[in-house]
């Protein structure tokens, strides 16, 4: 598990990452609640966006490895690409799950109104994995860390806008409201709506199921080994 430990150390080694990984989630706990929309406190409603940013920040390490030639050296080392990728992803996933747990537990302790906190944690964890898989698939396309990050920021904004994270989905006109159902962020907001207002439990698991299926798809696409 050397790669796993090293990935953890590298993730926390960068000052910007440290802010993303510790300061922002802590700040999210203390953000206030809106009167009308969203139903969850601001920090929790926008936590999905933070997860998307954190995931791309973490997976940038994979691009660094490619550009610095580490992947090339690993190809001749007695270690499989699967082992390299899985240990890295495990480290990133641990960080993200820890963040989700800290945020939800912090909210409960602070007294935020979270509906069903346990279900919210399950949803956040599902989305954390989806965000991680999306980021892995995204960085597989790029050679430069900066370009990958900048373009992905635009994607995050679009995903958040259309997925109903920045304004209610109900405001989106009819034909488009059907199209946005293909976005993972739609299923996160769908799940969050269930957490706050309740409803059929099957709907909640459907949202989680879709997120996990997306995780598998993006991981399959992102696991391709590229040696530049």
């Amino acid at each position: 598990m050397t790669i796993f430990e090293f990935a953890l150390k590298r993730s926390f080694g960068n000052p910007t990452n440290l802010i993303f990984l510790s300061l922002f989630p802590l700040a999210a706990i203390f953000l206030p609640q809106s009167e009308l929309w969203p139903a969850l406190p601001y920090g929790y409603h926008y936590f999905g966006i933070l997860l998307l940013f954190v995931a791309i920040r973490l997976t940038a390490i994979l691009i660094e490895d490619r550009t610095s030639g580490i992947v090339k050296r690993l190809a001749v080392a007695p270690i499989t690409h699967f082992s390299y990728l899985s240990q890295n992803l495990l480290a990133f996933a641990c960080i993200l799950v820890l963040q989700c747990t800290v945020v939800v537990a912090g909210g409960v302790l602070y007294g935020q109104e979270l509906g069903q906190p346990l279900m919210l944690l399950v949803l956040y964890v599902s989305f954390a994995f989806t965000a991680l898989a999306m980021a892995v698939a995204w960085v597989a396309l790029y050679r430069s860390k900066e370009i990958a990050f900048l373009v992905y920021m635009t994607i995050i904004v679009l995903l958040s806008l259309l997925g109903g994270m920045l304004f209610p989905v109900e405001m989106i006109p009819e034909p488009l409201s059907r199209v946005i159902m293909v976005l993972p962020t739609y299923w996160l907001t769908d799940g969050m709506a269930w957490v706050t207002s309740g409803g059929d439990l099957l709907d909640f698991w459907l949202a989680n199921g879709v997120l996990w299926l997306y995780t598998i798809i993006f991981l399959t696409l992102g696991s391709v080994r590229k040696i530049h």
Partner: protein
Amino acid sequence: MSPVPYVQGWRFLQIVALIHLWIAGDARPSLFLLILLLLILVCLRWRFPLPPWTAALDIGAAALFMPFTPLAGYALALPIFELALAGRWLLALPLAAGLLLAQGDPAVGLWFFAASLFFGGFARVSLRNERLYQQEVDEQRKARQELERFRTELLAAGRASAHQAELMERYRIARQLHDHLGHDLTGASLALQAYDYVKEPEEAAKLLAEVRRRIERSTDSLRETVHNATPVARIGIERLEQVVQGYGELGLHFVKTGDMQRIQAYQWDLLESCLKEALTNVARHSNATEVRIELQTGEAIVRLLVQDNGTLPDTGQPGTGLKNLQLRARALGGSLSISRGQGVLLVCVIPLEERGEPDEAADRG
């Protein structure tokens, strides 16, 4: 171009078509699971070569959703394509027919399935052809490498036999000198030594006559040996000069520097071929009026430069003749290059054997 991207593109296109149908239909969230399941299989096929039986997974997923939506019927286009791609298109036919009957409205679906079936078959043929071409190219490459190896071995064998022939010739001349010239000269020398001790004038005159006779015979023998050893056909620098004279109409300037004796027979052969090729090319393809030929023999290399003043533009890749010469030059550890600037410049460089190489010393014994 490989047909693989088109096969992958077709699979993803089917998913996009399903998403379109889903959005255009009732867009029930639960049905999106079917599309995602199929998308996972498509992604897996993109990443790994899955066996044909995995089409059963697509069929299973579609069958699971069949009672709830007509979309699942259209989803069968994917396994039909996969079966056709694997050459099991006969299995795909009853599947398509049975499901069309179950759907009740065969009009659009029928053509959708037929397109999948045909493209699957077409992709199969294309992929097989690509594999065959690849095999053929590999075999040809292998044959070419084998040929190259043979050529190198042949050149080495030629070099060895030239060396052997030189040794034989040297031995023959040495034997001739020893057997005839040597005996006569030794006899003459002994006779001269005896002359000092002979008192009788008649005996002395006889001895002198014998010495003269032996020296004359030696001179004849030497002349004969030299005459026999001189080749009838011209070799070496003379041969090159002869080639140059053959192209008298071109305006040639031939300059040679260095010790020509150091160039071996097999090296002369390559130099002659290069010169002939260069001059033929000038005569056939160039408008040059002057050609400057330089043969420089240095300590370690011999260099042949052929520079013309042609002004016609470059016509592309060098011909087969030049390519062959390049290979031959490479096989001798040298190089042949052609550059175009002020006319065409051909440079052939061949490394020379070091003076007094160990094997040569050993040959001398």
